[in-house]
């Protein structure tokens, strides 16, 4: 039986379909059931669609202010929580006046009971005008539906249209109330469609080159983008737009002018790459920059596309030279250690192979909160025989996985980290990282160092009092 029912799930047997143990002999279509509604009360780790659009997609844009149309909570939770640093540099050579503006400010319409009864349109209008007044230097205003406004049915589009003219700024409405879709993935999708439909093709870049690319699905988590950007610069390739790490509003508007799109996070952003290809004929390729091997392969692919193979080789050679000694050190320390990767989505297939290939680690379990079928196919292809693949693990399963598979380290999120610690298992952050960036050649060394530091922290050897002492 390739599917497995955990002991803790005997009362919710539907979970069996979500948990698959890889067997080479199985047909391809054997993958965990996914992207379906969560079982109520199962203690899921999933988030909502609003988190998907604001937290993941738009929260990285440097020069817009976000107006959350909600009671105060969604605004509070939407405030600067994901580690998306931005530089003040703008594409026109100017500087945005506030550094890391996207991490510093968030606005909300602060809906009260009377607004729920009589509608929140007036407050939305006031708040957008106040946003334009409070932050006159922003280049656009993004506004979000939430559970409350989705249910009371405010026509946010109408307000946005009217005030775009009045303020002279793009006002973009994202309609992904928290309850829409089974996971935050729904919010990613809405974010892609909205930005494509409303912005792409509306502006022209100040200049273009034959080597312009869109780097799509790269959010600059903990500075990831700033590791890989120099690779492209050294190859003579120009990142015209990043979707959306450290990007400006205008960059999204001229994505149609790139010669090629690279799709980095393929769960959250393949949508827009496809749409741009269909409408503007800009082809896209899927890329992976986690770990030296994937990084090299993908730089070569991009080099080949632009006839810059030699330049790619030069980047790869220089970086490999830089990290080789450290890589060997960490490999010696981490060889044979077992890992469970529990990510939002694609890091399930980005991370395990590099850990195995470069560090000699063994993946015993992988799991995601919101992957879809295509993602699980890739995951299955890349993990070893016998690895358990779990869709949307709940916290009781988390305990059973730790007991049964005894991973030496878990790469996961903050909600899971401390319960793993209570069980005596080191766990480090993989959504927003411990001490990243983790991408690219140099980033992989950071990842290895953090895994090493977690596993080898002396604390794990002294958890319990030993009556016998040292003798």
């Amino acid at each position, binding site marked *: 039986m390739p599917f497995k029912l955990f002991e803790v799930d005997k009362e919710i047997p539907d979970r069996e379909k979500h948990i698959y143990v890889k067997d080479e002999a199985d047909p391809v279509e054997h993958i965990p059931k996914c992207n379906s509604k969560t079982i109520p*009360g199962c203690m899921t780790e999933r988030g909502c669609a609003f988190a998907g659009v604001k937290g993941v997609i738009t929260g990285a844009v440097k020069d817009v202010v976000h107006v959350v149309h909600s009671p105060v*909570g969604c605004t509070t939770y939407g405030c600067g929580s994901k580690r998306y640093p931005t530089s003040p540099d703008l594409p026109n050579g100017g500087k945005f006046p506030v550094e890391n503006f996207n991490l510093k400010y968030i606005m909300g319409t602060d809906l009260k009971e009377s607004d729920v009864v009589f509608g929140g349109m007036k407050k939305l209008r*006031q708040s957008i005008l106040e946003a334009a007044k409070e932050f006159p230097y922003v280049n656009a205003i993004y506004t979000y539906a939430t*559970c409350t406004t989705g*249910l009371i049915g405010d026509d946010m589009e109408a307000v946005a249209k009217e005030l775009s003219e009045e303020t002279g700024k793009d006002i973009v409405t994202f309609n992904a109330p928290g*309850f829409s*879709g089974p996971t935050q993935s729904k919010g990613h999708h809405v974010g892609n469609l909205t930005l494509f439909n409303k912005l792409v093709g509306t502006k022209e870049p100040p200049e273009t080159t034959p080597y312009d690319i869109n780097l799509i699905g790269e959010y600059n988590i903990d500075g990831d983008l700033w590791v890989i950007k120099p690779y492209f610069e050294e190859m003579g390739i120009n990142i015209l737009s990043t979707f959306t790490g450290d990007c400006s509003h205008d960059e999204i508007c001229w994505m149609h002018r790139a010669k090629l799109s690279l799709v980095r996070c393929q769960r959250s952003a393949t949508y827009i790459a496809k749409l741009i290809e269909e409408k503007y004929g800009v082809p896209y390729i899927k890329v992976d920059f986690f770990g030296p091997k994937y990084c090299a392969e993908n730089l070569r692919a991009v080099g080949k596309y632009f006839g810059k193979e030699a330049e790619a080789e030069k980047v790869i050679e220089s970086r490999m030279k830089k990290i080789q000694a450290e890589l060997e050190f960490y490999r010696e320390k981490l060889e044979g250690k077992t890992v469970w990767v529990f990510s939002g989505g694609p890091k399930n297939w980005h991370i395990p192979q590099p850990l195995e290939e470069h560090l000699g680690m063994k993946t015993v379990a992988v799991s995601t909160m919101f992957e879809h079928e295509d993602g699980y196919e890739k995951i299955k292809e890349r993990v070893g025989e016998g690895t358990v693949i779990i869709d949307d693990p709940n916290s009781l399963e988390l305990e059973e996985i730790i007991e049964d598979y005894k991973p030496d380290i878990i790469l996961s999120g903050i909600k899971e980290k401390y319960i793993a610690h*209570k069980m005596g298992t080191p766990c480090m952050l993989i959504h927003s990282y411990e001490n990243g960036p983790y991408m690219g050649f140099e980033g992989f060394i950071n990842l290895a160092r953090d895994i090493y530091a977690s596993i080898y922290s002396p604390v794990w050897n002294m958890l319990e009092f030993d009556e016998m002492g040292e003798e």
Partner: protein
Amino acid sequence: MGECNVIKKDRNSVINPLVTCQPMGAMYAVAGIRRGLPLVHGSQGCSTFVRYSFSRHFREPSEIAVTSLHEDAAVFGGRRNLISGLGNLAVRFKPDLIGAISTCSSEIIGDDMVGFIKIAKEEMTQKMGEKEAESIKIIPISTPSFVDSHFRGYDNAIKALVDNLAEEPTESNNKVNIIPGMVNPGDTREIKHILALMGIEGIILTDISDTFDSPLRPSATEFRPFYPKGGTTVGEISDSSNSLGSISLCNYSGSAAKSLEKKYDVPSSLGPIPIGVQNTDQFLRNLKKYTDLEIPEALLDERGLLMDSMADLVSRYLFGRTVAIYGDPAISAGIARFVCELGMVPSVVCTGVESKEFEEEMKKVSKESDGPVDMLVGSDLRALETRLQEEPVDLMIGHSDGRLFAKNLEIPLIRVGYPVYDRAGYHRVPIVGYNGGINLIDRITNTVFENFYDAEHWKLQQ
């Protein structure tokens, strides 16, 4: 004597809020119950964001379940979600108590939580047997997100717990009920320490001191499911009607105490939070009032240690400095009063709520202030930033969210309250009681050393 100006923000929108919505306060309250689990009847973000926030602050697990409302529930109602959510949680986690917490969506849809809980209870009885189903208390907690803030959610939750669980009084248990408010584990521990010195047994409604700060001892920890040690038992809450009195430490969380007073004649008092000398003195007088016990020497010695610190430090390092305080209305008012006791001026006190209790408390505090006090009510961090840009102060006291503009304005920030995620251990160090006063005066004075004196300066020589 300083004047007191009440200032409201000049916008309708909120920018960088100082509060969140009601459900979070209810989750906090339920987390303080032994084997208690919150079940949020809403979208997944409603639980996930709060778990993230708790874990970031306490560096601890935070187990909060959700009924995962999706589109179909938005259209047809969340009946099935709540009933099956309760059932799944009961049968897999076997908690002592489930707090069923409403949200904006379930309130707008109009779900009848009380009715659904009844049906869920029947289903549980069929599935688990009467005895086991009966051992799991399910408490409906109404916390519409679009009314007030998380402080109200906390108050509503404690009241719902007491209203549903407190039994007809039998005979006095000689205990005192304490409603701590949304304070840190270190604060609740300090309150328990004071009670212990007084020789009083307390019923803490509810006690997050161990549940949000639990030891890493795999061999002595309850797993499958994981439950942290500690927390108030359901039995203790049931017994709260037999107590000598109830003290609600924070000015926003008195409803449960009032309810016990009204129903069962348990006398109650509301605030002020025992931060600083006079507020802690008042807390001890309240304890004495209900128990008739003397204040023990050991506590008076602790008070004396605080006096000693103040005598040593205030005039030389702190006197006359201006302070901006922000965050929780009860904690902010308490700190403002302590700041006056330290010879400093609470020039700006900023909170996200509009409450009569807060304003009254602050008016009293301003009478003890050497300079004018600007009270920013129903406000937010952006309004505070703007105010401090125009008129700077020497020090800021508040939670981590003010760190970015504090740095920008070059005003040293002394971290207290919730959330503090960019310092270690602050949830463990009390700011209440005399010991809390000593911790605060040390933290404030050390910040003054670091920011107003050169490290090698001869002024620091002796």
